[in-house]
């Protein structure tokens, strides 16, 4: 830590005393060692992160081969196809918002998921953070229990709970509350429920780690200075847990936007989200360039959204 923070000042040292020179050299050597330590991670990111991205980028500008794969011929058709449809007869482009609608719907799903997760997750995390220290780890363990089994299995379980002959409908029918099953499976509701269930822990955990570090004497201080409970929440607790809120929102929003398994199973392939759409291009659609273009457009949209989100929130957080 000290070595890393010293290194930027080392070259600007003007007093050429022996000790200073030695120190500067030691600092430089330390910095070199630190860089070496990060090498394995950099190699992995390079091979499995950057390289595939380059391949996707290249493929998106090629022509689809009839049975999957690509033909090595430059084309921007994939991007045009995102918004337009080429008429088979006269080659004119017609605006078709189908993909755009799926994108917007996915954004809506992701936003709703994030907001509800935040509303449910914050009180949960606050409850956990205010338990006695010995109890807290048990609560964290409970929150992570869903991770012990596969998401696919858990999503199928939801299916069994909400389907027409599922647990909820059976119970309501038996109690005489309803006389025919409420259709929940293969609806937007089912997708939303599945997304909430899948991503809630990703909101709770960063919120908890932020709230756990909160100095509760600050809450006492605010109370002492005439802040009501509501004011303490808005003026002290929320601003101080902002790093957790930002991390939680990112961890929920981004994966929720690209969710694949949940909408596929609970939406029944009728209510598509971006993930399913892209997967389709590489499967039954046999249009790899279009799939690549769709993935890149999603990435660009996320980056733009992130840019505004971080710029609007980080200014108020400040370090320390």
């Amino acid at each position, binding site marked *: 830590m000290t070595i890393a923070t010293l290194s930027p000042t080392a070259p600007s040292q003007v007093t050429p005393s022996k000790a200073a020179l030695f120190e500067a050299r030691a600092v430089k050597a330390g910095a070199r060692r630190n860089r070496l330590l990060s090498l394995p991670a950099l190699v992995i990111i390079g091979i499995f992160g950057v390289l595939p991205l380059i391949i996707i980028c290249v493929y998106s500008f090629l022509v689809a081969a009839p049975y999957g794969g690509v033909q090595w011929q430059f084309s921007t058709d994939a991007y045009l196809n995102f918004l337009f449809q080429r008429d088979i007869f006269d080659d004119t482009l017609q605006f078709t918002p189908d993909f755009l609608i799926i994108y917007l719907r996915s954004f809506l799903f992701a936003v709703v998921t994030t907001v509800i997760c935040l509303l449910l997750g914050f009180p949960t995390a606050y409850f956990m953070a205010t338990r006695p220290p010995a109890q807290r780890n048990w609560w964290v363990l409970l929150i992570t229990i869903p991770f012990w089994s596969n998401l696919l299995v858990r999503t199928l379980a939801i299916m069994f709970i909400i389907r027409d002959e599922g647990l909820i409908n059976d119970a309501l029918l038996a109690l005489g509350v309803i006389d025919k099953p409420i259709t929940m499976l293969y609806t937007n509701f089912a997708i939303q429920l599945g997304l909430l269930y899948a991503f809630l822990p990703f909101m709770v955990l960063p919120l908890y780690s932020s709230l756990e570090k909160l100095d509760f004497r*600050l809450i*006492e*201080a605010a*109370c*002492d*200075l005439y802040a*009501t409970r509501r004011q303490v929440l808005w*003026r002290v607790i929320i601003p*101080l847990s902002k790093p957790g809120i930002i991390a939680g929102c990112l961890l929920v929003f981004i994966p929720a936007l690209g969710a694949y398994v949940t909408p596929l199973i609970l939406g029944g392939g009728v209510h598509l989200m971006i993930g399913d759409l892209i997967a389709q291009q590489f499967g039954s659609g046999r249009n790899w360039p279009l799939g690549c273009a769709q993935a890149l457009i999603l990435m660009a949209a996320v980056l733009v959204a992130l840019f505004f989100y971080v710029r609007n929130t980080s200014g108020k957080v400040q370090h*320390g």
Partner: protein
Amino acid sequence: MPEQPGKNAIEVRGVRKVFGAGENQVAALDTVSVSIRENEFFTLLGPSGCGKTTLLRLIAGFDFPTAGEILLHGQDIAPLPPYKRPVNTVFQSYALFPHMTVAQNIGFGLEMLGKPKAETEARVAQMLKLVKMEALKARRTSQISGGQQQRVALARALAPQPKVLLLDEPLSALDYKLRKEMQIELKRLQHETGITFIFVTHDQEEALTMSDRIAVMSAGKILQVGTPRDIYERPAERFVADFIGETNFLPGTVVSKQAGVATVKFASNATIAAGYPEGFDPTGEVTLVVRPEHADLVPDPAKGTIAGTLSNIVYFGTDTHYHVKLDGGENFIVRHQNSRSSPVTFGTGAKVGIQFEEDAARVLKD
């Protein structure tokens, strides 16, 4: 002294505070009653765990008493939450809001009270001036030093003009010089604002130099309330004498007593007249307390009330401590103020006598 209910800022009546339940019950405060007058610099003094911070937290409203009542200007505030009490606290850790600037911290209380913006700003400016922090008002609290944080914490607590200001060991995190400076600063602020200060500390010197009155606490009880001079010169109990300043304890036997003065005989058959607190009836074997500066060394052992051998001499700059091993086996310390013309010099190992000043010795209950 007779109570004047109208003149008391805070009245604590029979307050008990028990933490835990069942077997693990701990009485942090054991039926404490005390009155704190308006515009007073009142100190709660005691070792850690004596209940002084608990009492402060009860007055602030962070905890609620198990029994008893707390009156603020004659009105019971015990059931009120902290944000409804016109009382502010300076915390030991300062508890400044890290996400706000110095000025925002100071203005927080006023803002929560819903004061108009112009009034808040004017008051914050006034507070910044009072604690000499105008130049740093736009800084974050993490970007200022400990002493500066202390000033901001004070300004923040004073800004809403509370009826009573509570200070929970606010100087303990500061180094010696800064602490001395802040002690004077605190006295000045109290004088200028006219607000009642209730100050919690375990530092007896701090308590003696700053307070109008001191309450000495131990094990959840208040042992004595009085002016610094009262507490130091006429301690009511052995604990008070022991906790505040240095004290010599001498065993003796009461021979006779009349009108608050007992005649006590030492093992050497020498006798001395010693006062004792009201409501205490010393008989038989007792302990006498004598402050080190209320005794003098004489070169001739026969001339002293008691005699012994000089075992150690410790030089403190302003004064010198002479450690004397008494003939009876006890240790006795004599403090002598150094001057340019100290007439007698003593060497270790010398036989010396100890003379007491008038009223130096007191009999105290253990």
